């Protein structure tokens, strides 16, 4: 693998720079003071200001200061960090519009804190700043799960928090050791220096939802609020991808982890019945492409990972938003309970299909110009198995997001649901995101213009078109041949979260019961011993015992008189 240097285009700037995250955080704090349409207008305006601040940021190093002898950089803006900041700011506006009707200040504030923290990670030039924003992301995002206000949301949000706390601790430990070894906190490409390298890497991989550390995602996202999941699906895994591109390009074993991840997501998505769980697994599958690309570490691969993260955030938001609209309007979230609603929610249906075509990498849609870039990177490297397995996962992606989910949600049999079309703000948000999906697919030069390296890649070559179109259309044929085996089933699939949801409680409970039993046995044995002592004491001093008996007054008088007589005799004689 060739070595790739990412640093270079960021030069120190002395100009004044307003950190977009700081503005967003301060702005979010005002939201609870406002009400009604003023609040709605303010939220949209705030998101627009955020976009403006991000997009007018020029490459450079800003916000550099010394703190306790540490050299901190809060604003390292180069092409890579800007690409991620751009899409984070876009999705903030889209998700804000989508959630315009929601009246829940806690959600509004925490979602903006969350977006600000993710952008803060993208701009962080040192590991300490990165860590602070990393933890802030966790603390802000968990509210988007908890505010769904169901029992399952509460417990899965708690698990989400625990897993991310572990990720944070590993990251922090890695950073501390890294500082101890190198004496620097700068966040650049990591050199393999044993422990800190792996600690930081595992911390990042947990957030990127790489198996076996991925189950928090498929556990928590389907339980979150309808609007919160748009932020969740866009931010946490993609900031992790950003940090991987920045810190760990060319780490060979990530290629295979990525491939496993892509296929893992496919298998579980195909088994899923809950439509948001299906999409959650499809995030894992898609992030697998990016992780594999980071593992390859070549120029085209890293461009591909960045481009795919960018288009992924947009098309995945379309998918989650339309599915969220379906859940809002029908109150159902399972494939087995849905069907036949396409004509009542036609706009939602068509916008969903735009997102589905994008994620499946149909030509003219955004996934095509980014996903094929990663496949191309594998082809250039000549790693045939990776290429074939990623193509397989690509067919699988179309199978479950492009065919299975829309077929059983919108088409299939009419189950008697008569929902109204989604409200205008939801449709508008979906429309904006869908527009970007098409725009990027038709005019990829726009996306390519802010990739970390100059892009010399043509997605629309005859080879790519033939391969993708044939792959997808014949996967479709396969779907319709096997359609009766593919409907949702009244089942759930256990994943690695089984370890801490079933196995660990079982171990803890059986350990507790073992301790309890042992304690009881010890107490019982002690009782036998003390009982023996007690009994023998009783025999001597008890009611029946020699020493414990009481005597009648007469007898006592005789004994007293006898002893006094003996004493008198003693006195008289001596």
């Amino acid at each position: 693998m060739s070595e790739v240097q990412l640093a270079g285009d960021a030069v120190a700037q002395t100009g004044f720079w307003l950190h977009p995250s700081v503005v967003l955080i301060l702005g979010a704090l005002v939201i609870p003071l406002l009400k009604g349409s003023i609040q709605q207008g303010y939220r949209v305006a705030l998101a627009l200001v955020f976009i403006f601040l991000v997009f007018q940021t020029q490459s450079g190093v800003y916000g550099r200061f010394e703190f306790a002898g540490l050299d901190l950089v809060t604003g390292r803006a180069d092409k890579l960090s800007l690409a991620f900041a751009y899409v984070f700011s876009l999705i903030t506006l889209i998700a804000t519009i989508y959630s315009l009707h929601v009246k829940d200040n806690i959600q509004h504030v925490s979602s903006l804190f969350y977006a600000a923290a993710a952008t803060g990670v993208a701009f962080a030039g040192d590991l300490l700043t990165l860590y602070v924003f990393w933890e802030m992301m966790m603390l802000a995002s968990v509210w988007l799960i908890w505010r769904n206000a169901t029992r399952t949301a509460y417990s899965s949000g708690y698990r989400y928090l625990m897993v991310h706390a572990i990720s944070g601790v590993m990251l922090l430990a890695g950073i501390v050791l890294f500082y101890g070894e190198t004496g620097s906190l700068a966040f650049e490409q990591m050199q393999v220096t044993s422990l800190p390298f792996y600690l930081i890497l595992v911390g990042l991989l947990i957030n990127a939802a790489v198996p076996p550390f991925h189950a928090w995602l498929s556990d928590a996202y389907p339980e979150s609020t309808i609007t919160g999941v748009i932020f969740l699906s866009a931010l946490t895994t993609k900031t992790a991808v950003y940090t991987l591109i920045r810190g760990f390009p060319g780490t060979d074993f990530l290629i295979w982890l990525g491939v496993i991840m892509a296929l893992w997501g496919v298998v579980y998505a195909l088994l899923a019945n809950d439509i948001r769980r299906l999409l959650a697994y499809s995030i894992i599958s898609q992030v697998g492409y990016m992780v594999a690309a980071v593992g390859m570490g070549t120029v085209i691969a890293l461009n591909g990972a960045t481009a795919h993260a960018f288009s992924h955030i947009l098309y995945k938001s379309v998918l989650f938003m339309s599915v969220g609209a379906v859940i809002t309007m029908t109150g159902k979230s399972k494939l087995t309970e849905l069907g036949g609603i396409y004509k009542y929610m036609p706009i939602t249906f068509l916008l969903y299909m735009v997102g589905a075509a994008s994620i499946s990498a149909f030509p003219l849609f955004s996934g095509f110009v980014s996903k094929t870039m990663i496949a191309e990177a594998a082809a250039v490297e000549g790693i045939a198995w990776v290429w074939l397995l990623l193509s397989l996962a690509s067919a699988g992606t179309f199978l479950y997001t492009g065919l299975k989910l829309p077929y059983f949600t919108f088409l299939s049999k009419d189950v008697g649901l008569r929902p109204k079309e989604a409200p205008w703000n939801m449709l508008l948000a979906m429309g904006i995101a869908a527009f970007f999906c098409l725009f990027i697919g038709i005019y990829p030069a726009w996306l390519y213009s802010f990739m970390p390296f100059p892009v010399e890649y043509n997605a629309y070559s005859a080879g790519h078109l033939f391969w993708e179109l044939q792959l997808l259309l014949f996967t479709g044929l396969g779907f319709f041949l096997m359609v009766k085996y593919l409907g949702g089933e009244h089942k759930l699939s256990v994943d690695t979260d089984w370890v801490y949801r079933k196995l660990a409680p079982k171990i803890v409970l059986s350990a507790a019961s073992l301790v309890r039993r042992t304690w009881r046995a010890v107490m019982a044995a002690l009782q036998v011993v003390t009982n023996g002592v007690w009994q023998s004491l009783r025999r001597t001093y008890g009611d029946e015992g020699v020493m414990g008996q009481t005597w009648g007054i007469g007898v006592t008088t005789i004994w007293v008189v006898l002893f006094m007589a003996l004493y008198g005799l003693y006195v008289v004689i001596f």
Partner: protein
Amino acid sequence: MKLSKLGRALEWMHDHSKLLSRIMLTVMALLVIANFIFPAGYDRFFWESWPGAGAAYGLFSCFVIVVVSKFLGYKFLYRPENYYDNESKPNELTGDPAKRESGDE
């Protein structure tokens, strides 16, 4: 319930799905035939120069994914829908404290 114009258009397509699927199959056949006439132009992997390789791999992938996933599902992964329900009923998870004290859990 009254349908929107778009809804009616989609309903028409739904009602004529036989026709549409025939058109689609024709398009797919033409795509493979076109691939025979115009080569893909890549030969980094040997199959890239085979016309129709994508079509074959697509069908193969679909079949493999469905069979493997369903096999894993039925053999190892599927559980009843209420499998994790005890999480929201703490007493079922840790045992009923009243029963636990009397020692016959």
